[in-house]
C-alpha cells in the first residue's frame, strides 16, 4: 500500500506540524503588521526580532529534551543565570567580552550537563529533576546579582540588537546561526537520531543497543547551552543582569507553550526546533497584538490568556474529522 506513496508525501507528513506553526505565525504577524501604525519597517521588525529571538532560542533549548520524551523546567533559570553571569563577564574589550561569552555558554552547558547526569545516573524523572535544579540555578543567579545591575559590551550589544546592512534584524542572523550550528548538526547526527528514538520508545531504543545515557546527557547539555545563548542575548537587549524568578518562570512556561504550538509532541519522538521557533514567534506576536489593538488596559491580561488558550487549542480541530476514537489515546 504504502509503496504507492511518493517520498514527498512522507516528507510533508514529517514536517506538517512545523508548517502549521509557520502558517499560524504568518497569519498573526500579518495582522500585526497590517494594523501597525508604521507597518513593515526596519525598526518595527528589529523590535519584534529582539524580543522574539530570545524566546525562540529558549524554545529551541526546550525542544531537545522534549524530543527525548523528557522536559527541562530549568531552562528559564539557566537563562536567568546566564544573564547574570554575562552582566559581569561580557564586558571590556571585544576580546575580553568574547572570552566572557565562552564562559557564559560553558556555564549554561554545565548546568545542562548536571541535569543530564542526575536524570541518567540518579534515575530521576526529568520534570522533577529540572524543577529542583532550576531552583538551585536561580539561587546561584541571586547570589551573583542580589539586585539588578551590571553591564555588557556595548559595541557587541548594539551590533546584535540592531539591523544588518540589508535591513535584516541582526538577531535573526544570530538565530539562523544557532540553528545551523546547533540544531541542524544535532538533528542530523547519530545522537539526535537516538534522542528521537528514545522519545519514541525508550525501551525499544535500549533493546536496540543504543547508548541511552550518553544521548540524554548530551541532549540536556545542549539544552543548557542554548538556554545560555538566550540569557546572553537577553543581556545584549537589557545591558544588565537580573535574578528574577518571575522571568525564569515565564520563559520556562512559554518555551513549553512554544514547543507545543510548534508541533512537537510533549511525549517525545517527533517534532522540530524549527517548529518551536515559529511557535515562539507566534506567542510573541500574540503579545504584540496588545499594541495594535485598542484594548482597555484591565482587559489586556484576559485577552492574552484567551488568545493563548485559543492558539494551543488549535490542534483540536483535527479531532473533528477523527474517525477512530482509538487515535485519541496514542
Amino acid at each position, binding site marked *: 500500500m504504502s509503496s504507492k506513496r511518493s517520498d514527498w508525501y512522507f516528507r510533508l507528513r514529517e514536517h506538517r506540524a512545523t508548517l502549521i506553526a509557520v502558517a499560524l505565525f504568518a497569519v498573526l504577524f500579518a495582522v500585526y503588521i497590517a494594523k501597525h501604525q508604521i507597518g513593515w519597517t526596519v525598526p518595527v521588525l528589529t523590535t519584534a526580532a529582539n524580543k522574539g529571538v530570545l524566546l525562540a532560542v529558549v524554545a529551541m533549548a526546550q525542544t531537545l529534551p522534549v524530543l527525548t520524551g523528557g522536559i527541562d523546567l530549568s531552562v528559564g533559570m539557566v537563562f536567568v543565570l546566564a544573564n547574570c553571569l554575562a552582566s559581569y563577564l561580557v564586558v571590556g574589550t571585544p576580546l575580553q567580552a568574547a572570552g566572557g561569552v565562552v564562559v557564559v555558554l560553558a556555564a549554561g552547558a554545565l548546568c545542562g550537563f548536571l541535569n543530564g547526569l*542526575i536524570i541518567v545516573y*540518579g*534515575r*530521576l*524523572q526529568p*520534570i*522533577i*529533576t529540572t*524543577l*529542583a*535544579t*532550576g*531552583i*538551585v540555578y*536561580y*539561587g*546561584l543567579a*541571586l*547570589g551573583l546579582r*542580589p539586585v539588578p545591575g551590571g553591564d555588557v559590551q556595548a559595541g557587541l550589544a548594539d551590533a546584535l540588537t540592531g539591523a544588518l546592512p540589508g535591513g535584516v534584524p541582526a538577531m535573526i542572523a544570530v538565530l539562523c546561526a544557532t540553528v545551523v550550528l546547533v540544531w541542524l548538526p544535532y538533528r542530523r547526527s547519530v545522537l539526535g537520531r537516538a534522542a528521537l528514538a528514545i522519545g519514541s520508545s*525508550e*525501551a525499544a531504543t*535500549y*533493546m536496540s543497543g543504543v547508548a541511552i545515557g550518553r544521548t540524554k546527557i548530551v541532549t540536556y547539555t545542549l539544552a543548557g547551552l542554548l538556554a545560555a545563548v538566550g540569557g546572553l542575548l537577553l543581556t545584549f537587549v537589557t545591558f544588565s543582569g537580573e535574578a528574577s524568578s518571575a522571568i525564569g518562570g515565564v520563559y520556562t*512556561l512559554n518555551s*513549553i*507553550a512554544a514547543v*507545543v504550538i510548534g508541533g512537537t509532541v*510533549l511525549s517525545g519522538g517527533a517534532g522540530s526546533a524549527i517548529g518551536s521557533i515559529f511557535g515562539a514567534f507566534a506567542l510573541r506576536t500574540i503579545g504584540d497584538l496588545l499594541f495594535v489593538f485598542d484594548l482597555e488596559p*484591565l*482587559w*489586556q*491580561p*484576559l*485577552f*492574552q*490568556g*484567551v488568545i*493563548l*488558550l485559543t492558539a*494551543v*487549542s488549535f*490542534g*483540536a480541530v483535527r*479531532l473533528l474529522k477523527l474517525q477512530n*476514537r*482509538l487515535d*485519541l*489515546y*496514542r
Partner: protein
Amino acid sequence: MTRMSSLALRLRSSEHLPVAAGAACTLALLLFGSLYSSNFLSPDYLLLQLQIASFLGVVATGAMLVILLGGIDLSVPWVVTVGGMMSTAAAGWWGESGAVFAIPFGILCGAALGLLNGIGVAYLRVPSMIFTLGINAVAQGLIVLQTGGFAPQDRATPAMHLIATGRSWFGLPNALLVWAVVGAGTMFLLHRTTLGRSIYAIGNRERAAYLSGVNTRFVTLLCFVIAGACSAAAGVLLTGYSTKAYQAMGDAYQLPAIAAVVLGGTNILGGRGSHLGTVVGVVLITLLQSILSVMQISEMGRQVTYGVVIIGMLLIYGRGRRHSA
C-alpha cells in the same frame, strides 16, 4: 538472606517506602532545626506548621489526582486566587445570606475553571501542561478585571476565618481537620472506589482503560474539576487565614504542590502513588520552607538548599527503577 532481600524488594516496590523515608526525612529535618532553636520541637510550632501545611495539603490533593492521571495542573496560582476572591465577593454581593454561600460559591468557581481544564485536556486533547497554563492566564485576566472593574468585597467571612485559624477540637487547628477530611475522602476515593481504580488505570494506559469500557475522558474531566475545587478551597482557607482575599495569593503554591506530591512517591508520569505519601510530602515541604525561612540563611542559600534537599531526598528514595525490559 533471600528473606531479607524479598522484604527489601517488597518495601522498594510498595508505596510504603516513600512514606517511611519521607517521614524519616521529616524527623531528621526537625532534629536539624532543633540545633538552631529548640522551639522547632515545641508543640506550638508543630501545630502551626500543620495548620499552614493544610493549605498546601489541600492544593496538593488536587494536584496529586491530576498527576496520577499523567497530567499536571499549572493553573493552581490563579485558581487559588479565584477561590478566595470569588468567595468573598459572593459574601459582598448577597449580603447576610451571601455569607452562607460564600464558601461553596468560591469552591464552585474553582471547580468551574477545573471543568474548563478538564474539557481542554480530556476532550480537546491539549496537553495538560499547556492548557492549564492558558486557564491560569485566563483566571488571572478575570480576576484583574473583576478587581479593577467591579471592586468586589474581599474581606473573609467569620466562617472562613474560623475554619482557617480556629482551634475548636482538642486544640487542633480547624484547617488541619479540613485537610484530614479531604485526605480521608481522597484515600477512600483512590483505594475503595471504581473511580479511583480508573484514575490509576488512566495514568498507566488510557487506551487500555478506554478499551476496558471506561469513560476515561469523563474521569479525567472529573479529576480536573476536583483539582480546581481543591485549589479554590485552599484559596478560601487562605482567605480565612489572611482575613482577606487578594491578587496573586496563590503564587506560592504551584511548585511546592508538585514537589510535595513527587516527594511523597507519586510517579510524576502518573499511575502510581499514594495519598499518604503526599501528606508526608506536604509536611516535609512546609517544614523545609519554614526552617529555611526562620534560620535566616541568605536568599541565595535558601534557594540552593531547597533545591538540593529536594534532589537529595529523591535520590535517596525516589529513584525510578530501570525499566525492566
